[in-house]
């Protein structure tokens, strides 16, 4: 097993951790952070698996996807944070309403 697979497995671990946090935590800030952790895991997998060419030059296509992905993830996070702040200002609580608990 090469180092690329080790990094890819860590990336998948990060992704699973993010999914867990996304489901378990009710606070929206934690959910947004969880989605970011999931995204970071995916980026790590893409970058790691691009190294499998066996040459000095890794596969450039996944790298290009990750570079744009990082910037797009930042802007999506900013939009999500603004939505969260608006919700918190409106309801006084940064959590989605849960019918079962009420």
């Amino acid at each position: 097993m090469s180092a690329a697979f080790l990094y890819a497995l860590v990336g998948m671990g990060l992704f699973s951790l993010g999914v867990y946090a996304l489901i378990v935590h009710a606070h929206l800030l934690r959910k947004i952070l969880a989605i970011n952790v999931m995204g970071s895991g995916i980026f790590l997998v893409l970058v790691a698996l691009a190294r499998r060419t066996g040459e000095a030059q890794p596969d450039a296509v996944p790298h290009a996807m990750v570079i744009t992905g990082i910037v797009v993830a930042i802007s999506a996070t900013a939009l999500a944070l603004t939505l969260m702040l608006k919700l918190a200002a409106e309801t006084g609580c940064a959590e989605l309403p849960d019918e079962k608990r009420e």
Partner: protein
Amino acid sequence: MDRNRWLVLPLILALAVGLGYAVLSLPERTDGLQKMVADKMEVSGVSNPVTAVLLNFRGYDTLLEMVVLLLALLGVWSLGGAALHREAAPGPVLDTLARLLVPVLILVAAYLLWVGAHAPGGAFQAGSVLGAAGVLLLLVGWRLRPGLTAWPLRLILVAGPGAFVIMAIFTLLIERQLLEYPPAQAGALILLLETAATLSIGVTLAALFLGERPQDKGSK
């Protein structure tokens, strides 16, 4: 909550094991698309494969990503932003740091933009550094002059996607395909697109950090 946690944990573990198995079952050696990229490098106009993929081979994707960035900012602005930036005088450390770092960051952004043609770097990295400089400026209370917040700011925001769209129409009319540059001028055209994209990305990121739409009172 606690019962939920014990219900979710085995499911997530199963997901992790499944994903791990999927990763390990991939072939140990594969060329992916690297061979195709390497074969076409001479006509791409640049010598850095990542820049060639971003701006030339998959220019269409990058065009759409610039639009996504702009849409995110429009979303934040249409929500009215969030006025959580308390106006407070920055401490002397932050003030000095911003004065020292912002010129360096702008220089680094320009270098990254230029070096992207043949080494790691390019529009997205340079734009991120420029965005960081903008965030630093916003933190010390710097704001755009009111006269610049109306159309000059918007012009820079749409410069990146706009340049891409104009280039797409231009190449469609003159050349054969959408965003297919003539090989002789490809390098210069890519630098032109990247410069516009860098400015747009940097200003968009800083504007996203500020949140609220710059009104007549003026902000970046």
